[in-house]
């Protein structure tokens, strides 16, 4: 389908989310929409999908201007959307989810399950997206659930599919499968709008890329011509550095010692098991892995947020098991939590209050049970300057800051005190490129100060850019750590559960002997059945 957005403007109180956006999507095209968080990508797509009404502008589909008041109108117009967070009923089967809302019924409103199942099977076959129509959605891996979402759009005869950050939850291999599916989808003149802030993916799949910055289209690029650097500069609005400058690590004595760690969920099923890990001062050990493989409970156990079922954990010789979270933090552990909004800060507290959130009753910020606002504000002014937190004042509520600056606030709080161990979970999630650049350089600076750094990230690029050693978490177990450099393909395959011996070759079976990684990534890639993008 041919889609044209003409002069779309959408205002929220105090913000212009979209400012006269023009966008043309040709039939059969994969149109990449690139932009930082808060650039207005999701708003624009919500306007197109009928969730928001534009204040100004027109939506023209195949030459006809249309009024889209709700998602029903958009679906009727042939627009389908796969949201970042899936809109599926977990206890329903694949077929039930797909036909939900447009289901066929027999007499007395009984659902025609057999017909639904058969139709879905045919659709899956035809579109090259194999899926078992009778499987329960909650039992499917995330990649397949996403496939169900795409099939749902296809079942409603979508001719334009909007994919909102579709790769965020996928392994690199699953992402490649998704790209194949996208290519298959566009063969019959159907179009795709692909939203992502990952430059590499745009270059891999998009036919044309529009870059959105602060609500405006600032450029359209051909992915075959534009380099990642160009796109990044365009997206951020200034030259950015994509690579991390990092001198070789000079690790000294050991800080974090984990032996035989086991963490269980509420019903006693292990979510982390047999985990050994050692991190020394002056090195960054990164844990890669698809989310949900035990990274979150691991970090929670190491930082005293969760009970340890078995094993020992010491930080600079101090026993962690049995200590309170407060003791662990005060004794010298910094923690940048993965969910900033939930665990990192209190949005309604001021910047100054958030900067002492974990030191609220310590001198000099409190004396005899009374908060010392003079000291708190002076501390805040110092950190706001030192960590380049962009805020009108230290009294501004933290929730008003942009995502990147909120994260800088958390980083400042955790980095500014003297610590032995720094645990950073997804430190750049939902953060703009400019802030990512800064947080990365701070992580390296902290390492060079002699702090042991544990980085947990599902962004493989980030892991490989920062880590001195890389470990992979899969189904609650840790593989590695392996010395860097290590090929991206190898880590990617271990994230999907491949045996490290097979991936890295016989010479590199044991973590202690992986001093020489495969020089030529191609040898490691050789055994992979699917060619990497």
């Amino acid at each position, binding site marked *: 389908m041919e889609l044209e957005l003409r002069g779309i403007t959408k205002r929220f109180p*105090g913000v212009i989310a979209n400012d006269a956006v023009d966008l043309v999507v040709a039939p059969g095209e994969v149109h990449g929409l690139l932009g930082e968080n808060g650039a207005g990508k999701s708003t624009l797509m919500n306007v197109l999908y009928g969730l928001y009404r534009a204040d100004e502008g027109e939506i023209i589909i195949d030459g006809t201007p249309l009024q889209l008041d709700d998602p029903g109108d958009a679906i009727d117009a042939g627009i389908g959307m796969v949201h970042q967070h899936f809109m599926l009923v977990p206890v329903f089967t694949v077929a039930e989810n797909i036909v939900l809302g447009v289901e066929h019924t027999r007499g007395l409103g009984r659902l025609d399950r057999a017909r639904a199942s058969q139709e879905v099977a045919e659709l899956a076959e035809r579109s090259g997206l194999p899926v078992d129509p009778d499987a329960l959605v909650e039992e499917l891996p995330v990649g397949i659930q996403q496939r169900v979402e795409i099939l749902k759009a296809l079942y409603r005869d979508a001719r334009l599919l909007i994919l909102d950050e579709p790769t965020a939850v996928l392994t690199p291999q699953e992402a490649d499968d998704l790209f194949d599916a996208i290519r298959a989808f566009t063969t019959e003149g159907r179009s795709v709008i692909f939203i992502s802030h990952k430059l590499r993916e745009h270059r891999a799949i998009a036919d044309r890329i529009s870059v959105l910055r602060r609500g405006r289209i600032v450029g359209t690029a051909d992915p075959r011509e534009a380099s990642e650097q160009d796109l990044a500069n365009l997206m951020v609005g200034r030259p950015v550095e994509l690579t991390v400058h990092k001198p070789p690590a000079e690790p000294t004595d050991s800080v974090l010692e984990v032996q035989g760690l086991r963490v269980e969920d509420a019903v006693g099923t292990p979510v982390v098991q047999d985990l050994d890990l050692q991190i020394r001062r002056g090195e960054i050990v990164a844990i890669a892995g698809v989310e949900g493989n035990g990274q979150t409970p691991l970090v929670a156990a190491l930082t005293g947020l969760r009970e340890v079922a078995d094993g020992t954990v010491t930080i600079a010789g101090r026993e962690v098991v049995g200590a309170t979270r407060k003791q662990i933090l005060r004794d010298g552990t910094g923690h940048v939590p993965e969910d900033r909004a939930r665990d990192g800060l209190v949005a309604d507290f001021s910047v100054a209050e958030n900067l002492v959130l974990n030191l609220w009753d310590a001198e000099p910020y409190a004396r005899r049970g009374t908060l010392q606002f003079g000291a708190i504000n002076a501390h805040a002014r110092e950190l706001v300057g030192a960590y380049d937190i962009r805020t009108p004042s230290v009294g501004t509520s933290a929730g008003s800051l942009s995502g990147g600056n909120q994260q800088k606030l958390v980083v400042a709080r955790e980095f500014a005190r003297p610590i032995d161990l720094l645990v950073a979970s997804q430190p750049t999630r939902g953060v703009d490129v400019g802030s990512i650049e800064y947080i990365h350089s701070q992580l390296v600076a902290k390492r060079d100060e002699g702090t042991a750094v544990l980085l947990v990230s599902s962004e493989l690029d980030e892991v490989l850019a920062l880590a001195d050693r890389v470990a992979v978490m899969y189904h609650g177990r840790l593989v590695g750590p392996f010395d860097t450099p290590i090929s991206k393909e190898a880590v990617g395959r271990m994230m999907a559960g491949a045996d490290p011996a097979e991936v890295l070759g016989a010479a590199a079976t044991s973590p202690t002997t992986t001093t020489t990684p495969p020089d030529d990534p191609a040898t490691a890639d050789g055994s992979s059945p699917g060619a990497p993008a």
Partner: protein
Amino acid sequence: MSDDHEPEGNPPGPEGDDADERGRTAGDVLLDDEELARAEIEAAAERAADAKSIGLEASFGERFIAAITGTGVIVTLLAFVSALVIGAFIIAFSEDSVREALGYLFAQPGDAFRAAWDAVSSAYLALLQGSVGGATQLSETFVTATPLILTGLAVAVPLRAGLFNIGAEGQFVAGGMLAGLIGFSLTGLPMAVHLPLALVAGLLAGGLYGWIPGILKARTGAHEVISTIMLNNIALLVSGYLISTTLFRRPDRTDPISKSVEASARFPRLIPWEPGLRVNTSLLVAIVLAIVIFWLVERSTRGFELNAVGLNASAATAAGMNPGRTIVLAMTVGGAMAGAGGAAVILGLQHRLTIGFSAGIGFSGITVALLGRGRIGGTVAAGVLIGALQVGGRNMQAQTGTSLELALVIQALIIVFIAAPGLVRAIFRIKADDLATGQVAKGGGA
């Protein structure tokens, strides 16, 4: 530390020449770093202006200004106005002359409107005169406001910790019972000992009665709304039983009414030479307690924890705070305030315990705290306002025959309007630019 992140020019991209060529087109739209920083700060300032939040450290003046200009307070006041308007309709339609005039509305519409206007204006005028129309009326307003301020604080403190204390009524009863018991069973003590002792007994009893739902919530997760409602029933029924036992009951009476509190345990009147003015020193106690609570909630480290737990319990936990302990503290302190309210009524006004002596003062505390938006100063102000409404309501009934229940109806309507701020905004077409839509705008940009 900040110096090492300055981008060192534009490093050649991975695809050298190609990048240079594209770089020129991109250059037109590139901003410099300072410009970007300024834009980010401006955007944050705009969002902050919308949210109108004030920090813990804000001075009285800043709080006052924020209270006057914040949309939240405007919405609260409009909720009050909306409740009065609906109250006006109720007065009008319950008036016989108005209903008669409505019978021939189309023949003489003026009659109906005139009758309605007369009914409403005379009722509300009586309400106003009855509450602030003279020294006696003002005295009564403050007498009624004293326990309301305290039960308001009993709801407001837990509210700041994210808890909804419906149990102020029961805590009020517990406080009043023990204060009364100490007040009449100990004799021969000087007032300097007896009165503080009885008051502290009320605080302790109320605090203990608030501690129960707090510890239940912290240890077992029992929802405080459910447990405090049930504890209210227990307190009301057990107090009724106790008052009829020989421990409490006056020996010369058979009906359930307790012995009288000794003179040494009664709050002295503030203006003893004017017999009509019942306002007494318990008002000063309420003010002092409000100041202590203000320090606790807005200035102390415990208050920092309390607010953090109330606004984001996970972040509080992640920062090393103990939400369980904070919940218990908030409920205990809240209960103690309600207990003090019970003591103030028994020791300052009624001087003996009767069945149902709480008379819904604990429940009115919910209205007071919500009208005060959980702020300490706001709660004190709201306590006086609701006190005036209740006292004025009595005068309204006496003078115009409008039922006293109307004051309660207005109070209930206030809660409804405050609970549904969207409704008030829709009625008055206020640009919805406070918290709720701020979130939408933030989420929308992502």
